[in-house]
């Protein structure tokens, strides 16, 4: 098998899945342009979700924030911020969409399983089987300062709690038989006797004993999403998730290596190796020609990385306040300060600032870049840039070779940032036979082509998977 021969691909019939991530906090969503709309207006959410649905996307995602970002003890003021509670917003979108999946990022550290499982079940029922849950954990006491429990959990406990949380949530979701609720008001009871079970769970993290309040949805229970790049995160996904988000979607070889690794981990826990959908997050920039697309990318990067943002990013790297420097001038001459705790939360920290700064200096000098140009050129290289036809060919190659199952797109403009993708890229993908021409199912699980929930499978399979 050669990976370049189009006639000999591992997955000739593979289909690309698309999601849209309506971001709440980051500098990639451009807010300064005239076309940029409100980040909080319900119309923005409706518009993006309905546009994605017109483009036959699998899912609409919302992130979660539990504390505003800070840099050096001050609230970060350069990027978009302020967003609705995810499940609440998605419940509203359930009323104005018909097919698209609605995925909430919800934290296992500062929620309780019975409450969150119930909220997610509600979303699943209101959307008639379109809910998803992106399972995340929180790692700092800084976030804990907003909650009754306060404090934080160390790394190992965070995952232990997350896994047990999921076990309890699934037990609650499975607490009602599929036809537990009577189909006639003349029935002797609202729910069939024995159809609703007490859930008892006693573990190291949770001690739960309750009667669940809700039946299963059309898709059984919400689809489980997880993002995790560490070995531990990947194992967690292999044991528990239906879909994994990744940061491995920009480079084919990197994406394939990640996918192969996950398939190995799936087999190791006794799951079929096509049991998990891999959806890297990405930005997609489209032009009528390659040159136009590149020109658009340059414009977008300059909008995203303003002089102040460039100085902010460099400041985090150097460990210094650089806000009074000239972003269009040379790199700071000082050496980076490596602080134990730089007082920055929710912002990206750098593992080895000295090495990164050395590399930045070398490249900036070689190319004659300003600080801002350096931040743009050497910052995270995200996304795919090209013509609709070129991108469709590339994505068909990715998905047919099993490097990805699709992409979770982060539009750089709200609310119209999906228009190009829906109007131009989607038809090109359809022409190549790698994208649906209509929804064939009604649930998120249907769209993703997933098997039934892990807990509904045969006991043998469940034991292996557990």
């Amino acid at each position, binding site marked *: 098998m050669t990976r370049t021969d189009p006639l000999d691909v591992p997955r000739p019939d593979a289909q690309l899945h698309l999601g849209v991530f309506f971001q*709440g906090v980051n500098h990639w969503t451009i*807010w*300064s342009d005239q076309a940029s709309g409100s*980040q*909080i207006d*319900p119309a923005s959410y*409706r518009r993006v979700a309905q546009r994605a649905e017109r483009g036959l996307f699998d899912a609409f995602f919302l992130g979660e*924030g*539990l*504390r*505003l970002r800070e840099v050096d003890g001050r609230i*970060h003021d350069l990027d*978009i*911020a*302020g967003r*609705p*509670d995810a499940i*609440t*917003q998605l*419940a*509203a*979108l*359930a*009323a*104005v969409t018909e097919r698209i999946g609605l995925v909430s990022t919800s934290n296992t550290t*500062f*929620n*309780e399983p*019975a*409450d969150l499982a119930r*909220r997610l079940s*509600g979303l699943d*029922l*209101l*959307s*008639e089987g379109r809910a998803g849950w992106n399972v995340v954990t929180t790692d700092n006491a800084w976030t804990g*300062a*907003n*909650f*009754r429990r306060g404090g934080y959990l160390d790394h190992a406990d965070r995952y232990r709690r997350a896994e047990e949380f999921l076990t309890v949530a699934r037990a609650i979701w499975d607490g009602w038989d599929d036809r537990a*609720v*009577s189909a*006639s*008001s003349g029935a*002797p*009871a*609202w*729910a069939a*006797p024995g159809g*609703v079970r007490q859930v008892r769970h006693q573990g190291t993290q*949770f*001690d739960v*004993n*309750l009667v*669940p*309040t*809700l*039946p299963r949805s059309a898709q059984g229970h919400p689809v489980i999403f997880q993002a995790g790049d560490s070995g531990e995160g990947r194992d967690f996904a292999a044991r528990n998730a239906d879909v994994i988000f990744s940061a491995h979607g920009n480079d084919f070889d990197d994406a394939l290596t990640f996918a192969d690794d996950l398939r190995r981990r799936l087999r190791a826990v006794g799951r079929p190796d096509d049991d998990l959908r891999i959806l890297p997050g990405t930005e997609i920039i489209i032009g009528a020609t390659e040159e136009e697309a590149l020109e658009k990318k340059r414009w977008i990067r300059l909008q995203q990385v303003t*002089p*102040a943002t460039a100085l902010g990013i460099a400041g985090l790297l150097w460990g210094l306040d650089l806000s009074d420097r000239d972003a269009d001038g040379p790199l700071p001459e000082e050496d980076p300060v490596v602080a134990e705790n730089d007082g920055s939360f929710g912002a990206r920290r750098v593992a080895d600032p000295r090495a990164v700064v050395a590399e930045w200096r070398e490249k900036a000098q070689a190319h004659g870049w300003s600080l801002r140009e350096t931040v743009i050129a050497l910052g995270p290289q995200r996304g795919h840039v090209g013509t609709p036809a070129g991108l469709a060919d590339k994505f068909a190659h990715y998905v047919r070779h099993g490097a990805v199952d699709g992409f979770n797109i982060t539009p750089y403009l709200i609310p119209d940032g999906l228009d190009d993708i829906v109007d131009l890229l989607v038809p090109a993908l359809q022409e190549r036979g790698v994208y649906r021409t209509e929804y064939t199912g009604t649930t998120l699980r249907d769209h993703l082509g997933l098997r039934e929930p892990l807990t509904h499978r045969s006991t043998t399979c469940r034991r292996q998977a557990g």
Partner: protein
Amino acid sequence: MSGPALRLAVELDGDGAHPAAWRRAAHAPDHLLTPRRLSRVAAAAENAGFTLITLEDGTLPPGATPDVVGRIGAVERAAFLAASTSVIGIAPVVPLTYAEPFHVSAQLASLDHISVGRAGWVVSEETRPEAARLWGRRLVDGAAARARESRDGIEVVRALWDSWEDDAVIRSVATSRYLDRERLHYVDFTGDTYAVKGPAIVPRPPQGQLVVLGRPDLVPAGHLDVGLVAGRDLAALEAAAAAAGTPRTFAEVEVALDTPDATAEERLADLERHAPWGDGGRLRHVGSAAGLAALLERLRGVVDGVRLHPLVVDEDLNVLSGLVLPHLFERRHAVRPLPGSSLRTQLGLERPANRYAAQRTQTTPATPIREETR
């Protein structure tokens, strides 16, 4: 007695106020939790001219066997209905006995954004001891402890709603700043059992503060916009309303009405064969539409509005919308909500100034912002 026209609210949880209401519902039990049924009932209430829908809740199933009934979370139902209605106010019941005030604040603020200023909040208590284990928390034991959790929780939730000033998002292209951090505030709440830092994640709700409803005997009146007052007879209700001390009062009225097919007494007797309709100390009208209209007319001047608890939603809502409300509107004993108005406006309540903005302008005069903003 006469007074200003009443505002009308209706409680629409499940199939009705009676624990066995599902037996008389116009749909099969397995349709109760469908979005179609939910939006159909809300549309009926909106078209009838109600000002407000409330949605009861609790994290445990509402009934005992055989009347155990499923219940979708009130905030999720409210958000769904906010997107499928356009005029009516929507207030979910959210108890603070165990819930995280930070989450509650975010959920309710989001509901106000989603409904463009039509959201309210009925504060209640979680009294069943089993709820503590469900929340993984120690039992909040006794009325005083529950009242403390409600009081502290409302204080936090309200402070978080103010933690973004109305104009905190400045989008200043000239300075590259999306936010003005001077207009964001740590709430730094410290109560008896927990502390909350802030600021909120959700920008200030369109109404500034949602309309907060609750029982003045359980929640300090200073935290409530609308006191939900009850009494078994008019005299008791009048006394409760007079003692409420809240900006507005709504009377709790349970109703079972005559329908073309059966009298109210027959309908009630039918359900009482299965389970008793517990006495919640509320005024109860069992009888004709005309009788209810007359009763409500007498409440003008006593209270600012009423919250009706229909015996069976599918049956009583029809009679309310067909006979009772038109009668009240015609005689101007009650008013319909105006399209495009916030729930606060419908109730004649001011949009509150932001507490932190008020402090800030008192201490340091704000620098006028002259830069290009969008």
